[in-house]
């Protein structure tokens, strides 16, 4: 912890601290004061959001590269640094995290059961997420990665729904099993580089041998791929989502799944470019299978959250396909899709959460005709479904366009199949919308009031995000691209 090596105010650490301070403050509030806990949570989340927005604004994409760097030697003998920085790839992810956290905290405003623990764990989780995104040191990436995973267990097991204990256990074990490959891979790279630095950028300069890259990339892909719900390692996702409470589903599907793809990109492709190229066909294959498989299985589901879970599988398949192309457009699209899918799926879960809170069911055949009784709440879901279909002028359309453009170019068959997947996704999204919201008024839900203005706020925030980046994709693509263009030169 010597050799201060940072310029200016440590904004990134501050963002991280908003969650940790929030966590600590919540710990010291007596559990009965739920209102205060929620207010503190919201304040902390908003601070994070504000800082991330500022960060987004302040990032100079003309210059590109790593900015807002903080670098402090942490463990000398191993070469661990407290090394944070922002570039075009993690900046959207940071923004995504802050938006999703903000909306998730707000969405759970009506929580009454063990409020204190809930928010404390959520903040712990998000601290991990922020940490992974901002860290440029393998050690810390892994630390934060695990930190973001294990709170899932109590969060699902305590506040969850359907088969919560099973889901929680499955999800946690499965995801942590992924890290059984990540940690060895990280250490493997570290050891191959001489064992004196975990600094991502210093490691990048070292040319690993092709064999090492292949081995390490495969392990990283498997490890992170589990979290990114790459087929066939996706089954935790639907089960987990179904079990999880609303905010957790939002954060989990919205942000946490992105950690997987981000890890593949940030560690795997950055440090093992040749290895990534070697395995790119596998990635494309699995990604494409995921797209189609997710949509097809989603067609048969009767639980709203299962449907969304499988749609996530499908969408994350697109991310995988984009990454596999190893081209500017593909990666641009993949990162954009990560962002867009994060927001979209948060909106999905947020609306489903509301419906579930009111009707106490998320079984599609039991629902139906909800548009009559709760038009606004339904509109949120329908909006998300449209975004999921990839309707233009919503953020995910651009992502799909870019990914598919790259995919058709690099892997024509996969690209065409992925396009066909778009039909399926339309089919299954609309099917759900129809069965849940259309149809005759259901007397069971007649007395249920529509969503209140207050609770609509987080949903509206998410919707506006989707629309904003759908209408002005340049705002995001310029940022992403500034980093991706130099990035792909290494392949």
């Amino acid at each position, binding site marked *: 912890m010597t050799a201060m090596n940072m310029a200016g105010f440590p904004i990134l650490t501050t963002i991280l601290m908003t969650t940790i301070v929030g966590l600590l403050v919540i710990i010291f509030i007596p559990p009965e004061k739920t209102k205060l806990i929620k207010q503190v949570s919201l304040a902390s989340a908003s601070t994070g959001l504000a800082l991330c927005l500022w960060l987004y604004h302040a990032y100079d994409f003309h210059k590109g590269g790593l900015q807002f760097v903080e670098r402090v030697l942490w463990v000398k003998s191993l070469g661990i640094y407290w090394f944070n920085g922002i570039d075009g790839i993690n900046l959207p992810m940071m923004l995504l995290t802050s938006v999703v956290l903000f909306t998730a905290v707000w969405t759970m405003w009506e929580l009454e059961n063990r409020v204190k623990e809930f928010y404390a764990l959520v903040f712990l989780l998000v601290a991990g997420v922020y940490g992974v995104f901002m860290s440029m040191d393998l050690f810390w990436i892994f630390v934060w990665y695990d930190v973001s995973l294990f709170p899932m267990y109590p969060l699902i097991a305590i506040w969850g729904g359907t088969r919560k204990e099973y889901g929680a256990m499955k999800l946690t074990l499965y995801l942590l099993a992924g890290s059984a490959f990540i940690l060895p891979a990280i250490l493997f790279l570290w050891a191959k580089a001489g064992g004196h630095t975990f600094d991502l950028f210093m490691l990048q300069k070292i040319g690993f041998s092709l064999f090492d890259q292949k081995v390490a990339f495969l392990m990283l892909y498997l490890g992170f791929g589990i979290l990114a719900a790459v087929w066939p390692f996706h*089954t935790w996702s639907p089960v987990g989502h179904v079990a999880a409470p609303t905010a957790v589903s939002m954060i989990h599907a919205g942000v946490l799944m992105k950690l997987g793809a981000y890890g593949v990109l940030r560690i795997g492709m950055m440090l093992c470019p040749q290895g990534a190229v070697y395995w790119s066909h596998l990635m494309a294959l699995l990604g494409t299978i995921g797209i189609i498989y997710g949509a097809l299985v989603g067609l048969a589901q009767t639980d709203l959250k299962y449907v969304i879970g499988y749609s996530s599988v499908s969408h994350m398949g697109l991310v995988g396909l984009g990454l596999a192309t190893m081209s500017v457009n593909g990666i*641009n699209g993949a990162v954009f899709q990560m962002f867009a899918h994060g927001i979209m799926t948060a909106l999905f879960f947020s609306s489903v959460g509301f419906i579930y809170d009111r009707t106490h069911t998320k079984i599609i055949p039991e629902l139906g005709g909800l548009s009559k009784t709760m038009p606004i709440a339904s509109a949120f879901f329908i909006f998300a479904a449209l975004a999921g279909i990839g309707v233009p002028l919503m953020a995910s359309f651009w992502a799909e366009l870019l990914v598919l453009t790259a995919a058709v170019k690099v892997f024509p068959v996969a690209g065409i199949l992925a396009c066909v997947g778009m*039909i399926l996704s*339309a089919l299954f999204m609309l099917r759900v919308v129809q069965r849940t919201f259309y149809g005759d008024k259901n007397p069971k839900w007649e007395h249920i009031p529509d969503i209140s203005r207050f609770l609509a706020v987080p949903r509206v925030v998410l919707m506006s995000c989707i629309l904003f980046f759908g209408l002005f994709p340049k705002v995001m693509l310029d940022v992403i691209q500034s980093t991706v263009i130099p990035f792909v030169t290494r392949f």
Partner: protein
Amino acid sequence: MGALFRDPVLFATVLGTNLPFLSMAVILLFTRSKPFVSSRISVCSIAVSAVCAVSLLVRLFSAPALQYQTLWFSSDKLNITFGYYLDPLSLLMLTIVGIIACLVQIYSLGYMAGDPGYSRYYAFQSLFAWAMMNMVIAGSMLQLFIFWEMVGLASYFLIGFYYEKWSASQAGKKAFVMNRVGDVGFFLGLILLLIAFGNLGIPELNHAAVTHGLPQGLLTVSSLLIFCGVIGKSAQFPLLTWLPDAMEGPTPVSALLHSATMVAAGVYMFSRIFPFFSASPDTMAVALAIGTVTMLLSSTMAMVTYDLKQVWAYSTVSQLGYMVMALASGGYVAGVFHLTTHAGFKALLFLTSGIFIHEFHTNDMRIIGKKGGRKLKIPMVCMAIGALALSGVFPFSGFFSKEAILTVLASQPSKIWYAAGLFGAVLTAYYSFRLIFHILLPKGGIEEAHHEEHGASSHEHEEGHHGYIFWTMAVPVMILAGVSLVLGFTEHTLEHFLMRSIQVPGELVAPAAHAVSVAAHVAAGGAHHAHEAGSPLLTILGVSAGLLGIAIAWFEYGRKGASRNGFLSYFPAIWKLFDCRWFLDIFYRKGLDTLVYAGLTSLFTKNDRRVIDGGIDGICVFTEGSGRLFSFLQSGMLQFNLLLMVLGAGAAVLYFVI
């Protein structure tokens, strides 16, 4: 921003096309619970849009094509632009859309009055108007695609407007998904072009196609793929069945979206990059075949249905088939002209049907006839005008456009297309007048004069009471009827307008205009042929085809003592075939059910539960089981454990010694 206000053309374009969006936003956000305000906002904004469109048409009538564009974003080497392309074609279409949308919205003031979803209706109407107008003036194919999808979205919402009806939401879904099928082809085509050509600007594309800037293989593949979009949106064979179902929406919606404008978007897109398409003979041949098949198939379907709207729906499909045929055989002007006239008279037909439906609360033409449909004089006359136009009777607009198309078809080397066209014309006239005669001269006369009188008086009463409602519906209808009467005579002007811009390269967008000018050889050839070399024989054949159809209809339904069953009722098998839409729907349904739902989906779901997830669970069970197994090593018997220990040490020793 400054440029926006300095340039009146740009200002009018932006204002006209985006005002409906604003109105939608306002309605959805603020005035959802105030139907009156919502509808006025929407109508006003669309009126302004229509005015803007007309003024643009007038102002740019003799001006060269204008192009505005700005960079939307860029990724790698892709530069995605956002822009407007104002040339005669887009201006014409913009005007059509603006005017018809405006009329339909006014009409809806009456038609939709009292509906609980009044505000929602106007919001979606505005959404549609916005999307459609933006699509029409889009400067690049990608932008066109984007708004094309938005139009599809609006259509989805409007078809499923009565979402509490299962069939309505089903129809909306069907429309969206079937469109999606075509759109994926479209999208792939665009991606292909994006990769190989890197630019999707409409003028650039046309230019490149004409100047052989694109390899033939790419051209053919991508144009075929893009044509998939036309198939989807314009309900061509084999994706034609969504359109009849789309009639589940409110009638004004059917008029606006599913006959006049939206479904014409496919044809519009075809003509938009006409030079591009025409550069690939293969694609043109495929398109011609598909257009013909569609036209004939849907005409036959229209011959057997008793549902008022269904008839017009099938008729729309068949007219779209005509347009595609025209374009595919090189009749650029003929196709666009038919699009224009069709928009007018088909909207007219739907809106008048809407009046009947609104009045009698049924779609069945026989019941309407029996209940005294002919008592509604204004609609009856208007509908007759529309039907005459549709059948191609002089001097109604349809006559001119259909003649133009037939002429183009006749110029094709193979006469089979012409024959098909003529046959289609007979069928068209037959089913149109079958409908007219059903209402005008119902079987067994009008039921119960007394009741009818009562109905009439109550109708009168209603009319007095809801006069406003009736007139909001009648006035647009009459305007459209007028348009159908006179539009035909603008053929020369229109042709000149469309051709002029092609022949006179504009200064501003020289390369683009040049492209079109070169491309126009085919198009102009066809059109000129139609105009100049249209022999009297062809005209006589065309007119007599229409008259023949009417005559058959008269023989079967109109004359005294007519059977009123239709000759097809003697062939039940064929009747069934036509009535079931050539079993296309059943085929799709079965295909979807067996292949997707029962096949892949259930297979994959089982795989997911049993194999993948089961595998994971199996690993867990295996792990725990092996734990149980290993726990036997820790037996209670001390000496067994000691033995284990000693054996362990012994094994280690052995390992080293050996």
